[in-house]
């Protein structure tokens, strides 16, 4: 009897029940959408890494490494990497290169003595159209094992407004969660600062995989090893250095002649930390010189050339793939946001000194 009553009840309420069901399905879809877009749930997304960019950030500049200079050059392959990878850049005689030197500071007007991080970004375009993009730093390793660690590090080292220096308790808590970062802190405190872009070694830090013609995989990292000698400066020399010392030095050197770097590939062995950019591989690993980069000419980034390029290190040619290094994968999305934000500012005419007037795409750029 009860059952019958229920059935009758459900019959009369059929339409409202169905409507509820449809609303439920549609609502679930909308929630799934909102979560995937990062609108709800508060999860860390690649946008989170740019959330501290101030509203007043000078339009059109990179959200990090804002101060830089474009260059053109040529990569000449030695052929030594050919047995490991079918990428045509390793076999081609001359590969044209567009690149950029930059300071690690987010501030596009930073004085050159304000940061120890000097960087090189490259885009090699082989004759078959395959591109190899990369961003390299003069740091030998990354501070933390994953990208979330970078956010926590920023948070922990944020100066306390009342004291002007980081809160020691938060730093300790961070180093407890990311003990590997101690290595970075120590390196940062002791390693000499480079005094020239020309003499710095630039490292890829993340790991990649080479694929040979039989499909065999070889995990690697690489560096751009300078032909020019490394030079450093004392703290007092550095403090007195002019605002654009490093960039002026680079321009002067290029006027005298091209600068060179060897592309040195390090081959991992089983057990090496391929998925952890905070761990360096042993010195004894085999290295090959895959070719030499010649940097022949530099020009202002406002002129374009490298300005609108996203040197996204995850855009690799056939014959190279990504490793499961979590920092590498996170960078793909972070760079996409930074790139599209700044190029849209330029496109919509909001950029001022980030672009040169006569080259503007949009007459509204002043």
């Amino acid at each position, binding site marked *: 009897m009860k059952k019958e009553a229920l059935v009758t009840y459900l019959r009369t309420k*059929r339409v409202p029940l169905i409507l509820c069901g449809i609303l439920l399905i549609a609502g679930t879809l909308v929630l799934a959408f909102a979560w*995937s877009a990062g609108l709800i749930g508060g999860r860390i997304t*690649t946008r989170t890494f740019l959330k501290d960019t101030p509203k007043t950030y000078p339009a059109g500049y990179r959200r990090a490494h804002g101060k830089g200079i474009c260059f053109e050059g040529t990569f000449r392959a030695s052929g030594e990497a050919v047995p490991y990878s079918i990428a045509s850049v390793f076999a081609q005689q001359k590969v044209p290169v567009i690149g950029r030197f930059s300071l690690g500071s987010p501030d596009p007007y930073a004085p050159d003595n304000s940061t120890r991080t000097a960087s090189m970004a490259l885009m090699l375009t082989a004759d078959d159209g395959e591109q190899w993009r990369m961003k390299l730093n003069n740091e030998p390793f990354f501070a933390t094992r994953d990208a979330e660690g970078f956010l926590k590090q920023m948070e922990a080292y944020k100066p306390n407004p009342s004291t002007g220096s980081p809160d020691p308790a938060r730093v300790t808590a961070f180093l407890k969660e990311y003990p590997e970062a101690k290595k970075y802190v120590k390196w940062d405190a002791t390693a000499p600062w480079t005094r020239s872009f020309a003499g710095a070694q630039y490292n890829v830090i993340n790991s990649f995989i080479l694929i040979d013609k039989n499909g065999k995989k070889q995990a690697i990292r690489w560096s751009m090893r300078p032909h020019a000698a490394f030079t450093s400066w004392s703290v007092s020399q550095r403090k007195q250095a002019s605002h654009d010392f490093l960039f002026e030095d680079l321009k002067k050197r290029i006027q005298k002649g091209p600068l060179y770097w060897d592309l040195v590939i390090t081959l991992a062995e089983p057990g090496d930390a391929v998925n952890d950019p905070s761990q360096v591989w042993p010195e004894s690993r085999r290295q090959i010189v895959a070719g030499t980069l010649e940097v022949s000419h530099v020009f202002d980034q406002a002129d374009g050339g490298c300005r609108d390029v996203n040197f996204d290190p995850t*855009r690799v040619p056939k014959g190279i793939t990504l490793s499961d290094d979590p920092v590498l994968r996170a960078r*793909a999305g972070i760079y996409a946001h930074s790139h599209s934000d700044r190029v849209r500012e330029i496109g919509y005419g909001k950029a001022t000194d980030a672009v040169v007037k006569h080259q503007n795409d*949009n007459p509204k750029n002043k």
Partner: protein
Amino acid sequence: MSGKKNRPSAPPTQFNITARILHWLMAAMILAMIFVGLGMMTSLTWRPWLLDLHVPLGIAILLLVIIRFINRLSFPVPKMPVSMSKFQSKAAGTLHWLFYGMMLALPLTGWAQLSAGGFPVKLFPGVNLSPILPQSPLLYALLHDAHRVMAWALFFMVVGHFSAALLHAWVYRDGIFSSITWGRKMTIRSEEPPASAAE
């Protein structure tokens, strides 16, 4: 047109088999594409992999929508049921054409934004599509925003379309739903009154 080709004069009760297969195949692909797109813009881990999926899947949609469009224009389609108001059938019809517009515009703006941004349009490793626009910040800005706005709008169109479809399937039972499925034909749409009228 129908007279020339000796087709039955009564409109069909179902979309033809090509339309039905393409509808459901593409519905799955498009929903997947929307979530792949969102994932690309947020995930710390999956962006490279999702982008490698987004481009070939999106280009497949571009090819399929062309076939679907030709098929749609070449064969008669079921009429809206008489129980539906003029306004409703007009709205449904407009929405369907808007869907075609979106299914065409999204892959094209996607391809064009990669071109205008100076990126390779990687279909598979070693296989790149040629750019369809020159590199330009203004074009990139417009296309990037257009792709995003349209993709988000498409999602809400799909949710609306999907809810309306279920309403027709479960409440009105007027044959609209079965016109795009394989299920047994509940009624011959546009002829019999909808089942829901009895309630």
